[in-house]
């Protein structure tokens, strides 16, 4: 933590700050700044400057009353339970301090950045808040962006595959300029609509790094002998490993690494209890003169994921949704009084809780040909009794729907949601008859064109009993249209490999990861862009590996999807993108490439009775918004704090 506050370095402040100083940016209701009692000792010992000097000149003001919430008080520790040491990344995800972020209404709002401008879709000018500092007091400037761009992204040893994919347009990097201490500009030859959404992602695209701290680990800046010493004492291979390990921001491991999040790691691994302490230089304040976050600490207790529900029920967590399943709701509800919490039911953000994915790249030639017939896909979708699934498994709280956008997305249309989702066995039988499967065996199972019975193995990753239960219900209905399925649960990574190789005819997975999309978000899930898409792994791989492996799509509709995706990547305006999105969604609704069942199912969220400002209803999704992130956890406060 530095004591010296070198305001002379901020040319941009002297040019732009009015004579009133920082206080001029506060609404009239706040007369004075209120210091967090947690930092009182440090402030009195002069190790920390007073609040006015810790926040940027123009901090981000969160107007809680306008959002329908209550301004809070300082104090308290938010305890959370996790199942894995890798889950420390959840604090960065939940904290959701990004250059640009999504708000509650899915609008892109500058967060760390003061503002940003996009010209012609390809020239991005980013302006940092003057006076913004890292958590150790050192100024956050354009130098941190330059360090990342020149010394990390373009350093062959640190970035083996070159700069991140979202920063390349047609494989070309941008022209990076530092306009002044607080402004940087990225210029691409063609539009790069994926850039800003990537900055706002739950797993963000980091284009900055704490240069003042990391330079000691970089071969270009550090004293060679000292660097050698550091490398050997950390027992790593060379300076790149050291730099990578020490500079990891998403899954923090280094308590000394400066951060810009609301809470910064203070416990060194290994540990089963990680404490994240408030960042004294955090850039958000509320309208009453308090600096966010309200809560002083976040505590992660790492144990076994199977025990999280039991531990939550005894009141060991103040805010918990991860590792809590819908099944646990009844048990948690019955323990509400004893544990001192409320159980809210948020909605989940997937396009479908469980989707059946016919593998268009299956090795089996008969099934591969059948899957290309849209009538077969539609018939299978028509033969699913979504209402029964919703009632039996989700207590009727879900929404019967195809694998598409949720109603909360601006791209949602009723026709997408209801496409081929009514339960109509007659129509399904008719479609299958038309598709050439009219002959049936003695027990009603149809014959495939090559004489085999229509029996297929549906593979799952074997993790959730929910999937097995839904499949049991689907199985009975599909028998009535003459298709017999066998469920085979596998192990997760084995399952994926088999699908990629084409050994699996139909797999089961969750639907669209991002069903809350706005036109400005990338539609990569709707086109064959990655091997991880289980309905067309080889086509996706073909795109991903730039044609080196895999196969190009051979269905005209899929080719069209790919074209549309590429068009999106070159689009210039939101209107243009909306048109592209709707065409892609329409193709999916029509073609039923993935068979959705039920979406909008519930996610129990356990909130301590003492914790205020947590919305009673929300959408639980990783992207967009980082689970709790969009709802601003730094504004959650405890009603019984000492302040």
């Amino acid at each position, binding site marked *: 933590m530095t004591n010296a506050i070198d305001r002379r370095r901020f040319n941009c402040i002297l040019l732009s700050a009015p004579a009133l100083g920082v206080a001029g940016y506060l609404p009239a209701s706040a007369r004075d700044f209120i210091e967090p009692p947690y930092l009182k000792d440090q402030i009195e010992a002069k190790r920390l400057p007073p609040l006015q000097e810790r926040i940027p000149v123009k901090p981000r003001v969160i107007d809680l009353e306008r959002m329908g919430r209550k301004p809070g008080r300082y104090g308290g520790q938010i*305890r959370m339970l996790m199942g894995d*040491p*890798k889950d420390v990344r959840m604090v960065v995800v939940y904290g959701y301090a990004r250059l640009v972020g999504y708000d509650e209404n899915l609008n892109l709002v500058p967060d760390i950045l003061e503002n940003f401008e996009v010209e012609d879709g390809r020239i991005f000018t980013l302006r940092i808040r003057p006076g913004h500092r890292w958590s150790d007091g050192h100024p956050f400037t354009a130098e941190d962006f330059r360090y990342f761009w020149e010394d990390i992204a373009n350093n062959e040893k*640190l*970035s*083996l*595959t070159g700069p*991140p994919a979202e920063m390349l347009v047609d494989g070309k990097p941008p022209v990076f300029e530092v306009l002044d201490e607080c402004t940087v500009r990225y210029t691409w030859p063609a539009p790069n609509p994926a850039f800003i959404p990537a900055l706002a*992602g*739950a*797993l963000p695209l980091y284009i900055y790094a704490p240069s003042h701290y990391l330079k000691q680990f970089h071969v270009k800046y550090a004293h060679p002998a000292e660097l050698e010493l550091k490398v050997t004492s950390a*027992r790593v*291979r060379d300076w*790149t*490993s050291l730099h*990578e*390990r020490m500079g990891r921001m*998403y899954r923090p*491991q280094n308590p000394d690494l400066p951060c810009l999040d609301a809470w910064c790691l203070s*416990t060194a*691994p*290994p*540990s*089963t*209890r990680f404490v994240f302490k408030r960042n004294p230089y955090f850039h958000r304040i509320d309208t009453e003169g308090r600096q966010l976050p309200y809560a002083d600490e976040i505590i992660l*207790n790492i*144990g*076994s994921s*199977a*025990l999280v529900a*039991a*531990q939550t029920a*005894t009141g*060991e967590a103040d805010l918990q949704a991860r590792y809590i399943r819908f099944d646990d709701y009844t048990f948690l509800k019955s323990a509400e009084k004893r544990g001192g919490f409320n159980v809210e039911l948020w909605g989940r953000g*997937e396009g479908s809780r469980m989707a059946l994915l016919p593998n268009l790249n299956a090795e089996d030639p008969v099934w591969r040909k059948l899957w290309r017939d849209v009538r077969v896909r539609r018939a299978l979708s028509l033969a699913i009794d979504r209402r029964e699934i919703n009632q039996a498994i989700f207590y009727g709280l879900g929404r019967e729907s195809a694998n598409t956008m949720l109603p909360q997305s601006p791209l949602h249309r009723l026709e997408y949601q209801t496409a081929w989702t009514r339960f109509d066995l007659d129509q399904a039988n008719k479609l299958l008859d038309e598709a050439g499967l009219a002959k049936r065996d003695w027990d009603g199972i149809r014959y495939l064109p090559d004489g085999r019975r229509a029996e297929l193995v549906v593979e799952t*990753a074997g*993790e959730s009993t929910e999937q097995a239960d839904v499949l049991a219900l689907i199985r009975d209905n599909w028998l009535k249209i003459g298709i017999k399925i066998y469920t085979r649960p596998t192990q*997760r*990574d*084995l*399952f*994926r*490999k088999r699908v990629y190789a084409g050994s699996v005819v139909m797999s089961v997975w*969750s639907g669209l*990861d991002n069903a809350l999309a706005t036109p400005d978000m990338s539609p990569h899930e709707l086109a064959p862009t990655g091997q*991880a898409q289980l309905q067309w792994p080889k086509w996706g791989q073909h795109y991903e590996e730039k044609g080196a492996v895999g196969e190009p799509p051979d269905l005209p509709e899929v080719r069209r999807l790919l074209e549309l995706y590429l068009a999106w990547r070159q689009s210039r305006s939101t209107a243009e993108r909306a048109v592209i999105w709707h065409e892609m969604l329409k193709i999916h609704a029509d073609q039923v490439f993935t068979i959705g069942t039920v979406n909008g199912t519930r996610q129990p969220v356990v909130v301590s009775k003492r914790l205020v400002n947590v919305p009673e209803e929300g959408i639980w*999704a*990783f*992207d967009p918004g980082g689970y709790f992130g969009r709802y601003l956890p730094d504004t959650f406060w405890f009603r019984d704090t000492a302040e």
Partner: protein
Amino acid sequence: MLLYIFRRILIMIPTLLLTSALVFTIMELPPGDYFESYMAELQAQGEGVDKARIEFLKKEYGFDKSPVERYFIWLGGLLQGDLGYSFEYQMPVSELVGSRIFLTVLVSFATILLTWLIAFPIGIYSATHQYSWGDYGLTFLGLMGIAVPNFLLALILMYFANVWFGTSIGHLMAPEYLGQPMSWAKFKSILEHMWIPVIVIGLAGTASMIRKIRANLLDELQKQYTITAKAKGLHPFKALVKYPLRSSLNFFVGGIGGILPEIVSGAEIVAIVLSLETTGPLLIKALQSQDMYLAGSFLMFLALLTVIGVLISDIALAFLDPRIRLQGRSTR
């Protein structure tokens, strides 16, 4: 005698080498590697994957080399005392295991103590009062220990401990003491939590120990010298403890070999269910996620302990029982 010890130590080396090859093969056999399972896990949760970082890590840990090369690199590291690096926890294996060893040994010792304390009196009573109702009753209780599937018992006990005594669920201590230096309050919390795993694990071992004591003691009690001693009027307690019991403790010494690795790895399943901070769950998680070095090095460590333990028990046995020393050679 020394020659015997020397020969045994010499044989230990190829045994360990063979074990290391076996362990490595076992680690390599399941398809895929740690990074693939890591990516699959993230995808299962609907989260993004930073592919560039994964490529970087793969190269750093030498996954671009062939398995044979990696085996020798690992073996070389082991011989120098470097147990390797854990991908999951991102830190050296020795640090990781070391941080949990104390609690593991504590729980194991407590368990062994409990097992002996219960098994001995029951075994002796059973042997001396054979076929009585007491014998049946106590054997029944002991057998319950192995009959009940211990993961279920652990879960049930844990739940009821919370409902009746307010003990926090899982772990070896209440959450606020995790990672804190040892204090009286922390120690009390550990004791509060420790009785569940100790009972669940201990009960399982009790039954087999009761049976062994009973069987061996019965054998000794039939022998001539016991009957002679009784006939000559030796006090029954002495006639029991001083001679037959000591002879029947042979199997104890033989069992020491197995105890050493047990202490260090400890009942894995119960530790997983109760989310204990011992080394057992570490090992299982490492095997499931194919965290190569953590799993492989730890297994080798356990193998080493076993071999040493067997050696110790053989030597001790040879010391105590002259019959073993003198026999056991090959025949014609």
